[in-house]
């Protein structure tokens, strides 16, 4: 076997998974173990209703309120679009399912590779559009830092190397596959340190903030 490929999916992957797991756990604990201030003002409609409404925000916030959609619809469509593409490619591509089955022991049906390829190309196009938007829109350019660009680079590199590997484009397959897995390794290692962590924060953040707004009976 190609030594680079062996390294990528052997020790390097193990190191990456370990960094990912410990890093994510630490970053979550370091936040959630901080002091919790108890809300002492009585909730307008009771805590239970506030909790339910807060939990609903986890889903409802994925779709912008209609008063905002005119201004934010394009950005949200791009953002959610490439996320959806990534989920489909990661979870429903046959070789990925084999990989997951090797780890967790369970597999599931895959989508046809040709369809996955189309989705991956579309996802890549959306990722490029996201980058163009980030550098061209003054608000985003100002907010952006190393984390934003580096995280984008790692995600995009993973998609590009994956596409190259499936298309056998740019080198021998095992070498392309090694680069694809190495980019996944890099992504996993970077994951706990940067904005990719939003994958773990998004629902607690929506629910908890939704709850704090809902207990006042205000808009959430």
């Amino acid at each position, binding site marked *: 076997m190609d030594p680079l490929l062996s390294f990528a999916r052997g020790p390097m992957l193990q190191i990456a998974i370990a960094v990912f797991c410990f890093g994510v756990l630490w970053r979550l604990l370091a936040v959630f173990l901080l002091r919790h201030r108890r809300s002492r*003002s009585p909730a307008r409609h009771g805590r239970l209703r506030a909790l339910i409404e807060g939990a609903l925000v986890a889903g409802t916030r994925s779709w*912008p309120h209609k008063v905002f959609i005119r201004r934010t619809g394009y950005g949200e469509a791009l953002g959610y679009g490439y996320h959806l593409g990534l989920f489909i490619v990661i979870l429903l591509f046959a070789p990925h399912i084999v990989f997951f089955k090797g780890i967790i022991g369970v597999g599931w049906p895959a989508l046809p590779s040709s369809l996955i390829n189309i989705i991956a190309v579309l996802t890549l196009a959306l990722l490029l559009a996201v980058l163009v938007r980030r550098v061209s829109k*003054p608000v985003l350019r*100002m907010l952006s830092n190393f984390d934003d660009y580096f995280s984008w680079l790692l995600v995009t590199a993973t998609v590009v190397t994956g596409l190259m590997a499936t298309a056998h484009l740019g080198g021998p397959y095992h070498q392309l596959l090694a680069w694809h897995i190495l980019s996944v390794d890099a992504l996993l290692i970077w994951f706990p340190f940067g904005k990719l*962590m939003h994958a773990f924060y998004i629902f607690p953040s929506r629910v908890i*903030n939704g709850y704090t707004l809902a207990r006042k009976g*205000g808009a959430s």
Partner: protein
Amino acid sequence: MSTTDITAARGPAPGPHAGPDSVRDAMRSFSRGFGALAALRLESCIHCGMCADACHFYIATEDPRYTPVWKAEPFKQAYKRESGPFAPFFRWFGLKHKVTAGELEEWQHLVYDSCNLCGRCSLMCPMGIDVASLIEEAREGMFEAGLAPAELYERAKSQQQTGSPYPTENSWADQLRAIGEKHGVEIPMDRDRADVMLCVSGIDIENYPALVVALVKVMESLGVSWTFRSAALLAENYPYLAGSRKWERDVVNRLVDEAAACGAGTVIVPECGHGYGALRWKGAELLGKALPFRAVDVSEYLAEQLRAGRLHLRRDGEASVTFHDPCEIGRKGGVMNAPRELLDAMGVELRELEDNRGFTFCCGGGGGVVFLESANKLRYRAMEAKLREIDDTGADQLVTTCAGCRYTFDDARAHFNWDKSPHSLLELVAQHLEKTGEASA
């Protein structure tokens, strides 16, 4: 009140007066109150910039600096560098630089002049971050750094020390009594026992005495035992606006002590947005224990009385009105149905604003911005969209339930030569009170 009066009421123009340790003090204060919720908010931001599209300051100017979450940037940066889960990592790799005093001074404009703490951005954030709360905490840091604008700082300090945000020729209680005498209503002041204690906005006392009269008439019509207390007369909480939690607590405490002294089980905050928010939603948190009374906004109290059949209103259906939800009472306070119930009971035609209820635009004056000389130009620009929405309804009257909003709209009337004047819902209710015996007729 004229714009001249508004200027006269202001303190000296704010200037950078940060000391050599200002950054340390600001960050220490910011991190002192730090809990899991604030950390989660800071950690969750993905720099999507969408909060900008909810903020009237950004919408009006398209200046990226007015992106809501950017207003908390130095504090976000300091958190990640000094106390976040990977603080050493950020320091070693130089991914977050140290916040400088100069940056904090620059941010004074963003944290105060260009933020009404209105919370509209909190409804846009795809991560669900309550951005307004972050900026509120940033104000607390700025306050500790000596960077609260002079107008708010002086009022906060004076209110904490004396109960009055600025020296007045006659005490606030005397001013209330004088309004009562002039309009032939008796002002219940410092009664030993009362079920309900009321405070009132100083803005109303000075500028809208008809509101005070309306308040007295409406309360008297309900037949409840109520009183003002001269030691805790004002509804405002300037320390909240300036960013001092400690002083804010002292102001709340004054209300708590006076309510206890007269045995009031209910404290009504009449038409003062931030005063309501500070008492109803922050009071217990500041004191560390539940308030010993129920804190209500006057419109929710009156809607309850209406439902209970104790408030009788005449339906005349003459006017069409549009209603401005004050951010602290509506979006952030949860009182949005009550004003509409009252308007409906009076038979007036309500023409809703394009952005209404929880999504309404701030009047532009919230968060103390109306008092900031340095914010004027930007504020006028930011409120143009709001004024347009009001005009677009074609309603005869603009009605609201916050003295600060009313004051801001009145100021806009003078500035823009705008043809609408804001009205108080409470005054409208007083005008529609059924005379005794009329209700059953």
